[in-house]
């Protein structure tokens, strides 16, 4: 088989191809004006989607019914926690980041507590948890208008040769996540549970522990995203994570991870995140109205999922 043929068999190649296509369409419209700027902007925004997408990917890989719908609330809470702890002081950045991670970790643990102890299906548990978290966030962050420390805000916007530093770090992070998934005991156990939870238990996989770790991991990554978003957009906000409810799930599916569980794909998440961000950029350059933009985004996501995921899941 040729090298190209092997490359075309990878499920993630299509999301990158899609990203390239919408980028080309956008610069064809502007006659090449702003091509580089679009890539830089796309990389900066894709970072956040990739981080939450990876968390969501691990959860979805646990098998049918597993999904974390509390991510937006968790992101919102962590952004407030990070900004309050940092208090605009550059010396407190690390402490603030740790506090945001801790807040996300607690949210993830709480989700799993609801799922396990109260035997609520994950989709209901995480959705109801998100209402509780949001209420906590509103009362905790009341009147909060704290700016991020200038050093932190500059760092989240830092670029080297037009490439955001955060994007480079996130590529490294994604590599780490791929190794975690394919080459560690934890990753293998997640994949086993997703394929057949009963067989996994009988093959000696500590099912409860692995599921707990996965929800906690997803929450923690939501916490990290919350802090980074607050730095990037220069302020915390209850609604800062709202768009990640749909996009975190969309990038997982477009990226070639199986919704039925047991099969995951990390590179595809990068491709899918770039695709979604560039899609918005393209529609913006075309100058379509907000309503049409949402409609087209929805239709394109449905189309891509049907085209990319259809034949694979049919068997």
């Amino acid at each position, binding site marked *: 088989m040729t090298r190209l043929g092997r490359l075309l068999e990878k499920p993630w190649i299509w999301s990158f191809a899609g990203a390239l296509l919408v980028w080309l369409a956008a610069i064809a419209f502007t006659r090449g004006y702003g091509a580089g700027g679009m890539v830089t902007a796309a990389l900066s925004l894709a970072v956040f989607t990739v981080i939450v997408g990876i968390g969501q990917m691990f959860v979805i890989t646990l098998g049918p019914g597993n999904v974390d719908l509390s991510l937006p609330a968790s992101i919102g809470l962590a952004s407030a926690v990070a900004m309050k702890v940092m208090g605009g002081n550059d010396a407190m950045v690390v402490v603030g980041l740790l506090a945001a991670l801790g807040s996300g970790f607690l949210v993830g643990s709480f989700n799993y507590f609801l799922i396990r102890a109260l035997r609520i299906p994950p989709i209901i548990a995480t959705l109801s948890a998100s209402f509780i978290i949001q209420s906590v966030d509103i009362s905790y962050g009341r009147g909060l208008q704290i700016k991020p420390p200038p050093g932190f805000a500059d760092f989240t916007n830092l670029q080297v040769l037009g490439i955001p530093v955060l994007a480079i770090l996130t590529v490294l992070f994604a590599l780490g996540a791929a190794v975690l998934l394919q080459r*560690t005991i934890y990753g293998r156990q997640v994949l*086993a549970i997703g394929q*057949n939870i009963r*067989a996994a238990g009988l*093959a*000696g*996989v500590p099912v409860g522990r692995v599921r707990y770790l996965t929800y906690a991991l997803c929450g923690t990554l939501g916490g990290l995203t919350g802090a980074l978003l607050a730095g990037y957009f220069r302020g915390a906000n209850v609604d800062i994570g709202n768009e990640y409810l749909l996009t975190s799930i969309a990038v997982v599916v477009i990226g070639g991870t199986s919704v039925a569980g047991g*099969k995951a794909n990390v590179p595809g998440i990068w491709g899918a995140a770039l695709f979604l961000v560039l899609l918005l950029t393209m529609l913006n350059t075309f100058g379509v109205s907000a309503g049409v933009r949402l409609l087209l985004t929805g239709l394109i996501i449905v189309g891509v999922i049907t085209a990319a995921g259809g034949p694979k899941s049919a068997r």
Partner: protein
Amino acid sequence: MPEIGNTIVKLDGVERHFGAVRALDGVTIAVKAGECVGLVGHNGAGKSTLMHVLAGTGTPDQGTITVGGEPQTAYSVSRAQTLGIRCVFQELSLCPNLTVAENTRIYHPSIRGIGWRRRASDLISAKLDEVFPGHGISASDIVQDLAIGKRQMVEVARAFTVTDAPLRLVILDEPTSSLDAHTSSQLLSFVRRTVASGISCVFISHLLGEILGNSDRIIVMRDGKVVTAGAASTFNRNRLVTEMGGIEAEPAAVAAAAMADRESRKLRVRARPVRQSDGRELIAREGEIVGLAGLAAHGQTDLLLAVFRAATQRAANIEVSGPVALVAGDRQTDGIFAQWSISENIGIRSLARLRKGLLISPAREDEMAARWRDKIGIRTPDMHNNILSLSGGNQQKALFARALGSDAGIVLMDDPMRGVDVGTKLEVYELIRDEARGGRTFLWYTTETDELKNCDHVYVFHNGRIVADLRRDELTEEKVIQSSFAESA
């Protein structure tokens, strides 16, 4: 002996390939009305593939299918149904989330309108009563709540129910693999009655005695080809085994000396079933093979699962010392990871030992897979192929490799020889005895009385309780069957 009539089905020069594997390599067979054809061959010989072709679930790459004298051009499952060809597959085909009656309705689209549920219930209940008197299955039971043996009984009975389409040929692909001796004999005598009434059967089994005792004609397959075919009376056990290309099948006389030093060996498992009212308990010591016998689904699997759980969590009435591994018998539900390769399926129980530093080493994983491919004889060109590319028996070997390749000192086996051919069985028995001599303890639930001869000690179960406790030198088939039916005090 009934009059054997015209040829009802003929396959001519049928070929089917899966990639480089020639599952069927030019097979020609014919089945006449009112005859029972026995089909034997090792795992991967092509038996199941051939039956899929006959049932319309697999399309041949070459060759023709003739039913009732008419060549079939667009042969399919529904065409097979209208022509009266039914199949009981080895991988059970019932919908697990539906009731027994609802599954029957799926099979018979003509049951419709008000009261369909009751009519479907009556149909399947009557057939179950006819085939398996005293079966204990209700038409309103959800299939996934039934033990695998009962699911198989439903599957078999359903294939023989008749509404509008005629019934001419039933293919039974290892119908007794999950049945105990009692229900197996009920099924076999039903098959003989059915054949006597003019319906044909194709009967696949690894139990050569069943084939020899119930077929009119026997076809032997090897490597996707028919190697010989002839009247059943011209075959005996040894000839069958030779034709299949296996090792001489007469089990070597097991060293009969009961373990003299039983008491002095280290205790590995002590367990009392939940429903046990007297003081009986199951004891297994280091290096022992302990059998769990009795009718299917009388608490043997429950006890194995309880022992499995007790290895990691504290449990009442059960003591387990050392790590435990389980070989599943119901491999689709309890064993296989369908998206993984053969080597990943083998390695999952031993991940900690496959690491190099923090990461799992592909080299070590390959090495373990290669070692077990040779040791247990998994038939595949590449251990990186998907597990489902293997035939049923070879999938089962991979599950054995998973357990035997692990660090577990105690191996639990949940009727693990379903769909495994004679040659492989003998190899695995030998492997188990070897491992036991090396100090491993085996708890072995089996529905085949012959397999109990490999055990040092046998506990017979009835209604969730241990009702008899036999040393190897006390073990006879009569005793096992007798205690299986005896009501315990």
